């Protein structure tokens, strides 16, 4: 077996860079669709466990409150002593990798597979960092190079006493809407943009984003920009709420935080959730779902059907001849826009139903806050689906980092002797992928149900209204989980 297998193990060759429309920013998944029986089992388990949880909640009002506890890890002096130097080292690594990635993008090999930037941005950073933030803690908050470089620049220029910004008041009405707009642009780049695997184009966009961020930091201050307008700081923070480590680097106003808590506990929050933040979370969930959905045969059929309608076909043709985008891209853009809108509408509908069942008196005067707080409870399902959807991509396409480490610019270097290392596609067997994906999504669903219940108990005075309020949320969650499982049971066609 060893000799034959080694020869025959499929390899993602460098030559195939030009072939095929890639579903994600970069790389291709070769996952087999879930077998029908497994999809049905997963959906069945979801419904049964939902009712089991409901029965437990009905008996015990404070079911799940143990969730709220967390331990401050910085109270232990060895940890405290290690944490700060470690954060500094990680921050330096973050800055070095950021600069290296940019330089590789601008000056390195134009081939997508030979240049560090493509694998770094789409696989290691966007997928890998998201996994780490969701499973361990919001590392991005610590290593984000943009604030680090900005603060370093301010220090070098010599504004030691100055606050490092013009200190303009951030318009309250804007809320987190800048982050929403930037995240939509990012999702579009990931899923529709034609040049998403062209090193120079990625580097240009990356630099533009950095310059925009630094401009924002200069106008409004580092922390304001980070909290309201930086799409990535916000996205990783949303995922980090699910994680067991609460990581927060120190700011002028607040000391650093390092707390240990159960999975999902960070989703229970006393901070009010504005409409823009709720929209941001829903946009994240919607784009993850769209990512899977737009590879399914159903989306393919929607595209074909849309083209048969004369008006749609004419509009698409007019759009594509006026711009550099083809019909498929315009169609995908339209559906990418419709997904988050549909998510927001459904969420608001379910929210209204929830508040009605809870009783008008239960949420007098804070209906928006009660509804928006529930958006966090959907995050575990999104995290689970995200993990299931991307794990094979991270483990296969992510292997490109091994040869790229030796030759980041694609100039033929061999720094660590790993150049030419071949990618092994057989690293995740379909059985592991199938059972792992279904188990993850079902566990995510159960966590979501618990989080929503604890949140409802905290918000609605009577046990009865808390329980009743959960029925619409449960319907929404079962639908969302089943949709996620259904997408995984679809063959990838695009």
């Amino acid at each position, binding site marked *: 077996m060893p000799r034959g297998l080694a020869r*025959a*193990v*499929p390899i*993602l060759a460098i030559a195939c860079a*030009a*072939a095929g429309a890639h579903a994600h920013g970069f790389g291709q998944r*070769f996952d*087999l669709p879930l077998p029908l029986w497994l999809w049905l089992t997963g959906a069945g388990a979801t419904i049964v466990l939902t009712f089991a949880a409901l029965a437990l909640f009905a008996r015990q009002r404070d079911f799940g409150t143990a969730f709220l506890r967390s331990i401050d890890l910085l109270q232990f002096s060895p940890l405290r002593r290690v944490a700060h130097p470690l954060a500094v080292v990680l921050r330096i690594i973050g800055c070095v990798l950021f600069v290296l990635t940019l330089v590789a993008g601008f000056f390195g090999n134009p081939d997508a597979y030979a240049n560090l930037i493509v694998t770094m941005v789409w696989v290691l950073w966007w997928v890998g960092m998201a996994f780490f933030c969701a499973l361990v803690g919001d590392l991005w908050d610590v290593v984000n190079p943009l604030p680090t470089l900005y603060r370093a620049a301010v220090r070098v220029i010599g504004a030691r006493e100055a606050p490092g910004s013009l200190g303009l008041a951030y318009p309250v009405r804007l809320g987190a809407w800048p982050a929403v707009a930037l995240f939509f642009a990012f999702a579009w780049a990931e899923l529709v943009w034609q040049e998403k695997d062209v090193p120079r184009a990625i580097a240009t966009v990356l630099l533009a984003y950095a310059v925009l961020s630094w401009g924002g930091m200069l106008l409004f201050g580092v922390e304001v920009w980070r909290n309201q307008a930086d799409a990535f700081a916000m996205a990783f923070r949303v995922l980090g709420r699910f994680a067991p480590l609460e990581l927060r680097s120190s700011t002028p106003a607040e000391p650093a935080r390092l707390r240990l808590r159960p999975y999902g506990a960070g989703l229970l929050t006393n901070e009010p959730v504005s409409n823009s933040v709720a929209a941001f979370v829903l946009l994240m969930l919607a784009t993850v779902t769209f990512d899977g959905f737009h590879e399914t045969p159903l989306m393919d059929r929607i595209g074909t059907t849309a083209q048969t309608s004369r008006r749609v076909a004419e509009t698409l043709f007019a759009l594509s001849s006026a711009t550099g985008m083809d019909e498929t891209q315009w169609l995908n853009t339209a559906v990418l826009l419709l997904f988050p809108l549909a998510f927001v509408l459904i969420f608001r509908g379910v929210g209204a139903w929830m508040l009605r069942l809870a009783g008008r008196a239960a949420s007098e005067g804070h209906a928006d806050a009660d509804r928006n707080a529930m958006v966090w409870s959907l995050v575990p399902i999104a995290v689970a689906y995200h993990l299931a959807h991307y794990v094979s991509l991270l483990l296969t396409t992510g292997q490109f980092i091994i040869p790229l480490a030796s030759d980041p610019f694609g100039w033929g270097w061999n720094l660590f002797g790993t150049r030419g290392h071949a990618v092994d596609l057989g690293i995740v067997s379909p059985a592991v992928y199938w059972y792992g994906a279904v188990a993850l999504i079902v566990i995510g669903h159960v966590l979501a149900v618990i989080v929503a219940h604890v949140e409802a108990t905290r918000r609605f005075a009577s046990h009865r209204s808390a329980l009743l309020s959960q029925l619409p949320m449960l319907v929404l969650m079962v639908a969302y989980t089943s949709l996620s499982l259904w997408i995984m049971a679809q063959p990838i066609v*695009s």
Partner: protein
Amino acid sequence: MENANRLRLRLIALVALATIVGASAAVSSQSFSVELKGGRVKGDETLKVHQGDQVQIRLSSDQPMVLHLHGYDINVKVAPPTPALLTFKADVAGRFPMHEHRERAGNHRAVLFIEVYP
């Protein structure tokens, strides 16, 4: 003594037989014939095989093209009227698309999918 020898012989024969049967069950060969017209497959566009199968696909097309099997990364040149033959051992499970290989990049659909089941 003779009995013991005979028993040993039978055992050896049995083991040999089991090996042959086992091997033939594990490595079966799968043949398909695919006809392309205008760059599209006539009929089912998904071929299903089992991991370890020796796969043989006869590709005929009404126009010349180069097809690329992703993942396994095999290129096949189809030059009508002669059909091309694509053979490989399906060692890794998964769903592998086959695209038409073109010079310019752009959105184009897969022509054929090969699903390798464990």
